[in-house]
């Protein structure tokens, strides 16, 4: 039982990151209808940039800030160079384009940083945090805190700001929204920038725990993506729920079965969701593609 609880705690930490990646997915999907398979690379870029800069001597705070900006810039460039030029592309084509971006970004990371793993020092010192007999690394608080911050900010933005309302209107009915002068393309651009920033921020806060390598993006991306679909790919609360659910299930499965099954369980769940309930736990009915 103590072991089980430990697995759950480990899953909470992972789940927090999955939730952040999922939030990025959901954001882009909601605003543009695109499934962005490159989302995980933003996490990797954030973590790598911060880690590389600190290894080079920069103070952590500055490195983190720069890392988030870099990630956001990459997100914006992705939109401008790969998405916007694809006029009239079908959703599937766009998915494949993001696949190409994912491959390209990973290749670029390999080129810039090589295959070496990098790491960041934990943001606060101290020993493990004890929760009901299980232990979590102190960095987990930073990850969870970032989660809270990001999701709260997104909530406030969408529910309580004029721009957020405009975005929701644009999402609900793009043709009508554009006749009201709502700039759909700007919102699409913005969604990529913000989603990338969120991912990058996630990368920065999670890197102290496992470290980061050039191909970390694939793991985070795929997991975050499963979390998003599980929770409902058009639901931000779903991203939160899906992230933590997936993290916990994966860790428990890895603990009870064997380590290799964490990804397996995750994708098995994805299959179940796609076949039985494509809109996920909290999603609304399928968006007309």
């Amino acid at each position, binding site marked *: 039982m103590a072991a089980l609880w430990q697995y759950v705690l480990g899953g909470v930490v992972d789940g927090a990151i999955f939730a952040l990646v999922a939030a990025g997915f959901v954001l882009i999907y909601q605003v543009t209808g695109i499934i962005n398979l490159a989302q995980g690379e933003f996490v990797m870029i954030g973590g790598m940039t911060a880690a590389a800069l600190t290894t080079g001597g920069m103070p952590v705070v500055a490195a983190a800030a720069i890392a988030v900006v870099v990630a956001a810039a990459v997100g914006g460039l992705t939109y401008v160079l790969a998405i916007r030029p694809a006029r009239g592309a079908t959703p599937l084509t766009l998915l494949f384009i993001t696949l190409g971006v994912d491959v390209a970004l990973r*290749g670029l990371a390999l080129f810039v940083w090589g295959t070496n793993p990098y790491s960041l020092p934990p943001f606060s010192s101290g020993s493990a945090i004890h929760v009901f007999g299980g232990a979590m690394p102190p960095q987990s608080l930073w990850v969870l805190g970032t989660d809270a911050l990001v999701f709260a900010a997104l909530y406030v933005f969408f529910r309580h700001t004029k721009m957020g309302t405009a975005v929701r209107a644009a999402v609900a009915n793009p043709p009508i929204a554009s006749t009201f002068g709502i700039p759909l393309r700007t919102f699409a651009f913005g969604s990529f920038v913000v989603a990338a920033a969120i991912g990058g921020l996630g990368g920065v806060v999670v890197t102290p725990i496992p470290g980061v390598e050039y191909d970390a993006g694939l793991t985070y991306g795929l997991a975050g993506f499963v979390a998003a679909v599980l929770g409902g790919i058009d639901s931000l609360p779903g991203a939160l729920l899906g992230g933590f659910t997936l993290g916990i299930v994966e860790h428990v499965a890895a603990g009870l079965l064997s380590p290799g099954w964490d990804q*397996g369980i995750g994708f098995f769940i994805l299959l179940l969701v796609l076949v039985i309930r494509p809109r996920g736990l909290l999603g609304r009915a399928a968006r007309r593609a």
Partner: protein
Amino acid sequence: MRRLSTAYAPVAAVIVAVIAVLVWFLPSYYTGLLTLIGIYALVTVGLNLFMGYAGQVSLGQAAFVGIGAYTSAVLSVKLHITPWLGAIAGALAAALVAFALSFIVLRLRENLLALATLALGIVINVVFNEWDFIGGSSGFKGIPGFAIGSFVFDQRAYAILAWVLVGFGIWFAGNLVQSTYGRALVAVSAGELGAQALGVNSEGLRRQAFVLSAVYAGIAGAIYASSFTYIDPTSFGFLLSVNFVLMSVIGGLRSLWGAVIGAAIVVALGQILQTVIPLVLPGARGDFQSFFLGVILVVMLILMPRGLTSRFANSGRA
């Protein structure tokens, strides 16, 4: 040019002949490369039938290659059957798995189908990794090679074998796409409801295309296993599936020769860049081709008038 591109059998024969001659002069490293291109081209031909002609998506094709590889390898080693039979068994295994999975997965369309095949590919890969009987994460070694009588295949023979299979694969696929059956595949991808209204069971047709693509992949996997004598799960993961998609799209989805060209480009580009880039940027290491391949994929997709498989699709519905 038009007629040459549809004269599948003769051109395939010429290619096999050229390869058979080439392997006598090439250093063994390049022969190995040629073998790999052939193996991947075989998979891609099958994938193009499924994606380009039938208009579907598979982001998990590497799993079928793996099923073919492991089936052939395990049967050859544990039951001592000849790899020739192993290859047939591998193809059958891949076909059976594809058939079973098709009932779950082929009801989905486009995006959802892409994601479902992605998930399937990863789950199957995890099975490879966790199943100790087939070696688990350490892989499976000691796979016997092909042999004719007392002649055990060497690298040259594998290259020729791979390309002979590509030749047959293209011949079969070529016959298929030029027949009414092949036209039906296109009809289902272009106007599914219209085809159904004529009595075409589109899901059944897609199922056959899916199973066929798995057969291609399974045979390729068996050759892969024997020519490398060692396989492990990392060879058949998501990254390979993405590579197959790259090969398909870069070569041209609805094209059989395109499958060969795409495979050649994706495999060769890596090699070329590995030689060239360190000359330009001394000290640079790693596989750079990913970046260029990703960019090429994106550029091609942007330039395609209607994108991927919807290229010829008409959305006219009631």
